[in-house]
């Protein structure tokens, strides 16, 4: 990390407010969903087997995860080669795992 960023704590609190804001937004969506205030297409229309709302939650979760890993865990300021060493196994193996297990789950559901 650059010296300029080391000098204060503002960057920590900035990430804190982002994480808090995104979480509050997620909880608000969740409560609106329970109370039935969300537009129907978000809750009932699906894409790749998941409701649009679920896709929104996943994107928001990945944004939060990005801030935690890149700023709080400092990975964003490490060497490029080190960043890829850490991230690539997850980027390759997790989608692969999701793909085989979840497509198998759909098959298991249809075969029940």
């Amino acid at each position, binding site marked *: 990390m650059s010296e300029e960023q080391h000098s204060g704590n503002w960057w920590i609190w900035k990430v804190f407010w982002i994480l808090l804001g995104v979480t509050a937004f997620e909880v608000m969506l969740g409560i609106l969903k329970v109370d039935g205030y969300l537009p129907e297409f978000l809750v009932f229309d699906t894409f790749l087997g998941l409701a649009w709302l679920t896709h929104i939650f996943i994107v928001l979760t990945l944004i939060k995860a990005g801030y935690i890993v890149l700023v709080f865990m400092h990975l964003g300021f490490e060497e490029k080669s080190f960043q890829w060493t850490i991230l690539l196994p997850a980027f390759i193996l997790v989608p692969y795992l999701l793909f085989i297990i*979840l497509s198998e*789950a759909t098959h298991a559901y249809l075969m029940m």
Partner: protein
Amino acid sequence: MADSLIQNDMNAPAWKGGDVPYKASYGKMMMWFFLITDTLTFSAFLTGYGFSRFKFKDVWPVPEDVFTHFPFLHGDHPLLFVALMTFILIMSSVTMVLAVNYGHKMQKNKVIMWLSFTILGGVLFLSSQAWEWGHFIHGDSGAIELNNADVIHVVKDKEIYSIYDLMGADSYDGSHHAFELADVKENFASDSELGLRLYDKTFLDHSTSIEYLDQNASKVLLGANLTSNEYGHVLFADYFFFITGFHGFHVFSGVVLLIILLINTIMGTYERRGHYEMVEKIGLYWHFVDLVWVFVFTFFYLV
């Protein structure tokens, strides 16, 4: 921090050690490698949860119906308590970064202060989780299990009606409750406003319900454990205990590490060592625990 790295001798030949291509110390790198393996472990757990949820999607409980309580508050407050737990964990992540930051500046007293706040956050989170487990195990309204292991609920006006109320018992009087199916059926029959909600969220009226219970009901379920679950499919309870339990165990280990770290900081170990890299390494682990919770929060409670 440079003295914690192996010094790079520019004249030494490559491939004989001594080069530091990642410019990260051995300890930090090994913590990251451990976290990669842990990432894959948690990915496997959550994917396993996804498998069961997709396979049993018709009978899977709606999380918003399960986690609706808040300590000392009456009524339904879906998501509020987990939101608080998430806030506690994010907050403790912030205090951890602050501790790491002051460690870089070699300000011992500030490191001690922020580490203490982080430990407090960890303990608060674990206490909240204990409360939530207690509530989940104790159960809410009770349910009826069928011969084919499906779980159905008693309803009034399409809202779940507590079996404790039906039996005139106080769910929280401290005693261990158990109701006979025959007694529940008898009380059920005497209140014509009652009906049933089947496992697939369809409803039966009173007279059909009585017939249905006679033909299919096997026992009364109160609360959740590894073999039965009043909220719905038993696998939901199993995954809940397993995943939040494994995460909680990580938080617990983190708190233990942080306490050791705090003692060492107070004793001046890192001051003498000349750097606070240990705070950074344990900080990585602590943030990872927060990271996992972000995913557990989404996939267990939100969707």
